[in-house]
């Protein structure tokens, strides 16, 4: 009996518990809205797992969320809350597209044609977050506010770049030419594992391991944790807080920027305004749920990747609004946020 109570108590304060509660609420919502729940669930499953294409698209989405989530937990290690993943993603995608379109990288050998735009995207994302790090160090600006504002600026920069003929807009061959960039050259596209799953997935898996090692097994990771836990004593121990803060933000943004490059070079092949819409927030949620663990990021990224695809499938197949999935996500975030209360009570020994 007490064992059961202990399990229940642990489940009630874990991310898995929060997700479970939100999923149940989502199921209830579906039952209310769908003419037939089995049909809705079948459509959901078809959208998420039904075809190789569906699975591939879900995995591609999960890869983006995982990178943004990794970036979030990395910065959070140093007690920096980077909520600007959306903007860093957008900057990464825009710069990757610009390098692919406006330079001659496409002809380069040894895979450089693919790698250079992706690296440029990662740098762009890193620098965008680095601005927030720099402002925090030099001006004491709260990084939550600055990354949020920088996100909006980035989204409108992308909008501008695809609306301006001088920048990335495709030539106006007819009156119906959309405000989008041209397709990037074939040479700069990321190859496929199993279409539509691209080879960036391998990089993402490697990065999960790398970030995990960096956070748990390196001096740098320990220093980030030190300034995160107690900046004052870390400073007394001789750590450079400015350097570590900016470094953490650069790395955090670079991961999101790389995700943006993967979206352009691996899936979408051209730049549109709003191409990153929703991915940054989803990635942030994934990072929050993972509670600092890189492998867990991967688990929640996959969950959310399949959830979104399933939601779209459900909308098309069973007429249940995909906003159900959106609501579920909101509930997951709220459950996780609210659980902090239970966790603190438990820490104080209140049953």
């Amino acid at each position, binding site marked *: 009996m007490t064992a059961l109570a202990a399990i229940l108590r642990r489940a009630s304060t874990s991310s898995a518990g929060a997700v479970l509660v939100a999923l149940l609420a989502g199921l209830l*919502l579906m039952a209310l*809205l769908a003419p037939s729940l089995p049909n809705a669930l079948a459509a959901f499953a078809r959208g998420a797992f039904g075809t190789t294409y569906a699975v591939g698209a879900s995995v591609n989405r999960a890869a983006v969320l995982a990178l943004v989530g990794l970036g979030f937990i990395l910065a959070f290690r140093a007690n920096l*809350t980077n*909520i600007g993943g959306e903007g860093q993603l957008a900057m990464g995608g825009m710069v990757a597209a610009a390098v692919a379109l406006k330079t001659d990288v496409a002809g380069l050998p040894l895979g450089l044609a693919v790698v250079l735009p992706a690296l440029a995207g990662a740098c762009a994302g890193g620098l965008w977050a680095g601005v927030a790090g720099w*402002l925090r160090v030099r*001006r*004491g*600006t*709260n990084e*939550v*506010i*600055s990354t*949020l*504002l*920088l996100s*909006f*600026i980035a989204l*409108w*920069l992308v*909008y*501008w770049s695809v*609306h*301006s003929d001088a920048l990335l807009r495709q030539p106006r061959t007819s009156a119906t030419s959309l405000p989008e960039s041209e397709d990037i050259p074939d040479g700069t596209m990321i190859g496929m594992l199993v279409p539509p799953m691209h080879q960036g997935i391998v990089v993402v898996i490697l990065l999960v391991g790398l970030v995990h090692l960096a956070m748990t097994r390196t001096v740098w990771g320990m220093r980030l944790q030190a300034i995160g836990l107690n900046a004052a004593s870390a400073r007394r121990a001789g750590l450079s807080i400015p350097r570590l803060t900016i470094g953490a933000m650069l790395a955090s943004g670079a991961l999101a920027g790389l995700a943006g490059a993967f979206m352009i070079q691996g899936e979408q092949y051209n730049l549109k305004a709003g191409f990153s819409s929703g991915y940054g*927030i989803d990635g*942030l949620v994934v990072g*929050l749920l993972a509670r600092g663990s890189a492998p867990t990021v991967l688990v929640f990224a996959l969950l959310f990747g399949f959830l979104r695809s399933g939601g779209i499938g459900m909308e098309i197949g069973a007429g249940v*609004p995909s*906003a*159900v*999935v*959106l*609501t*579920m*996500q*909101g*509930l*997951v*975030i*709220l459950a*996780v*946020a*609210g659980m*902090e*209360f239970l966790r*603190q009570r438990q820490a104080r020994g209140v049953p």
Partner: protein
Amino acid sequence: MTDAILVVLAASTVRLAIPLLFAALGELVSEKAGLLNLSLEGMMLAAAFGGALGCFASGSPVVGLVVALACSTVVAGLQGLFSIVLRANQIVSGIGLNIAVLGVTTIAARALFGRDAGFTIPGFGKLAIPRFADLPFFGPVLFSQSGFVYAAPAVALLIALLLYRTTPGLALRAAGDEPRAVDKSGASIAAIRWLAILVTGLAAGLGGAVYSLADIHTFTENMTSGAGYLALAAVIFGRWRVVGTIVASLVFGAAASLQFQLPALGVDFLPPALLIMMPYVLALLAVSGLVGRQSPPRALALPFHR
């Protein structure tokens, strides 16, 4: 620049600034008390939806307004539950509320108003003030607007008086700077913050209601599309002062209205995107102290533990 365009520009500046102004003034009260509500966007969206719902069901825009305020207050209440009672991370719970409100209003709008957009509700019309409406320039800009425009100065005045001329206002501002001292003085931080967040909910509700009841007489999915975040930026750019917040809202309104008038003004070298992003750039400069001195409340976004 012809006079006619100038009048249109000024009138739409006021019209676009008003919802921001309501929400930003409301948020100012919360932030002064140490609460950061990213859910301002959700409050506004809930109010826009509630306004349409109330009006759709009853045919009366007044009922719509009441339902709008009720909806935004519910969201504010939930944010209060997370920020004040559960002492949750205010940013995380704010984002969660925004996503949930977007999901719920989208589902509910489809279920209630039908899938096809284009339904209309009665809403509030323009209210021309006799005689004043005939004034050159000021007439069309200030005196032939919706009732919300005339209510805005009153709300601003009330909030300024609340913050700076009342005892609860003093305690409220202290709760955002030195919550521990307030607690020692015997006042309840929780009660003060609840008061603040309810004011925010009501004011944000007024702002959100403008969209569905005065601007366009309908509701569309994600109707506020980021206005709440813009209002947050206005508080920052206004450097946490009432007058600053009013000026910031007007500047943001001008930027928004200018983007629509640029072609008419024959300006084609200035990309509209630059104008739309300007509020965020200004807010970033302000919060970084690169223009003027910044003074956010010291306990902003920090849960209070006794």
